[in-house]
């Protein structure tokens, strides 16, 4: 059974490798594809982890289904019960944490709606009065359609066409349901700590996606870059600069300068040339292989127990 255990430990370690590879892959893709790769990898790796845990958890149950008494199971594999117990405890804790985090998301959404509805507006816009420079996409909630919430302070900070950039950026978040992708990635971090790095890069690439969409709507990547930079500089003067909840993606500069720099650079495109395309494909298949490896392992564990059961009964 030790060899099986080694495989299980490996399967639980897979997400570290998978997350690193998926992060590399996202770096060479245009933002939209990057977001789907990151979300997909998060779901697959979290699914693989859960499968491996369930595989461990179900060994004693499977044995009893095969009509092998528990004492006999302990005889054959002494670690079976403690391991199954540990896996079960982890699964239970994960489900409770996922539930709690889900409730936190909904409560934040409810509070945000309560506050934002004190603003005025029409269509998909809500203007909240005050000098603070802030704007965000408020996702749909209980039959209310998603809105773009902008403070009057932000409105007056922007120049000319920058208003369009802001609205287009937030509308891209709303129509792309970016908060759902974020929420999925956030819930997955409960399942495996390695997925935190994916949540961080997803947050960044979702902003890049909305930036590029906004640039396409207003027809200028430079104007979009300028709008971002001006809004950020105006906003940072009003306090609350504790580094923000945005994780730093590089040691030298935070996410905002990177977003602005990306807009000033060339338009993102899917990797061209056979070498780069092969590289992307290799990275993608590595992530998939790691995730499906965990699934296959859980299934293999199931088969192994059935097989061992037959051997035990046949003694």
């Amino acid at each position, binding site marked *: 059974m030790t060899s099986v255990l080694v495989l299980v430990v490996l399967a639980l370690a897979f997400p570290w490798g998978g997350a690193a590879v998926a992060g590399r892959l996202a770096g060479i893709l245009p933002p939209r594809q990057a977001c789907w790769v990151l979300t997909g990898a998060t779901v697959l790796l979290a699914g693989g982890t859960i499968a491996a845990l369930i595989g461990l958890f179900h060994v004693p149950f499977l044995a009893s289904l095969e009509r092998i008494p528990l004492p006999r199971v302990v005889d054959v594999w002494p670690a079976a019960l403690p391991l199954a117990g540990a896996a079960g405890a982890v699964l239970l804790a994960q489900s409770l944490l996922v539930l709690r985090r889900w409730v936190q998301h909904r409560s*934040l*959404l409810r509070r*945000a709606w309560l*506050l934002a509805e*004190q*603003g*005025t507006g*029409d*269509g*998909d*816009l809500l*203007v*909240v*009065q*005050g*000098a*603070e420079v*802030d*704007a*965000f996409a*408020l*996702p749909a909630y209980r039959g209310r359609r998603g809105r773009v919430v902008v*403070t*009057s*302070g932000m*409105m*007056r900070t*922007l120049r000319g066409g920058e*208003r369009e950039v802001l609205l287009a*950026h*937030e509308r891209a*978040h709303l129509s792309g349901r*970016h*908060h759902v992708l*974020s*929420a999925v990635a*956030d819930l997955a971090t409960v399942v495996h700590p390695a997925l935190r790095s994916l949540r961080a890069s997803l947050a960044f690439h*979702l902003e890049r996606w909305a930036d590029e969409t906004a640039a396409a709507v207003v027809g200028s990547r*430079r*104007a979009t*870059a*300028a709008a*971002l*930079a001006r809004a*950020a*500089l105006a*906003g*940072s003067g009003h306090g*609350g*600069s504790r*580094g*923000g*909840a*945005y994780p730093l993606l590089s040691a*030298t500069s*935070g*996410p*905002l*300068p990177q977003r*602005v720099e990306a807009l000033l650079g060339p338009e993102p495109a899917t990797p061209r040339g056979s070498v780069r395309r092969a590289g992307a494909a290799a990275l993608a298949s590595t992530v998939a292989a790691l995730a499906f490896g965990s699934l296959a392992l859980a299934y293999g564990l199931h088969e192994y127990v059935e097989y061992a059961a037959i051997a035990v009964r046949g003694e």
Partner: protein
Amino acid sequence: MAKRDERRQHGELVADVLAVLWQAGEPMTAQQVNATLDKGLARTTMATILSRLHEKGTLRRTPSGRGFAYEPVEDAAGLVAGRMRRELESDPRRDLVLKRFVSSLSEDDGETLRRLLREAEEDSE
């Protein structure tokens, strides 16, 4: 689906009109809003949108020339932006659920951004 799309487009148009007025910070006539928005709308369409927003109480208007000049209704009692920011800022899930236009900056970020902004503006002018 087509109907829903139409409604969404109308919603965005009304929102754009409101945004123009909020950004201007001074009363504007239908013609001025139309010129700023620059979407090639008919004058009557703009006049209808504005008068509807006025009826709803979102805009207030003053006579100007042959028509009206509109501006957003602001009242000191409605200053909620600060409270909103304070209450939501402390929530660790904020940036996951509410996608912000810009996040807060570190000291170095400010420097870099000022440089990039100059770069962006130099070339576009």
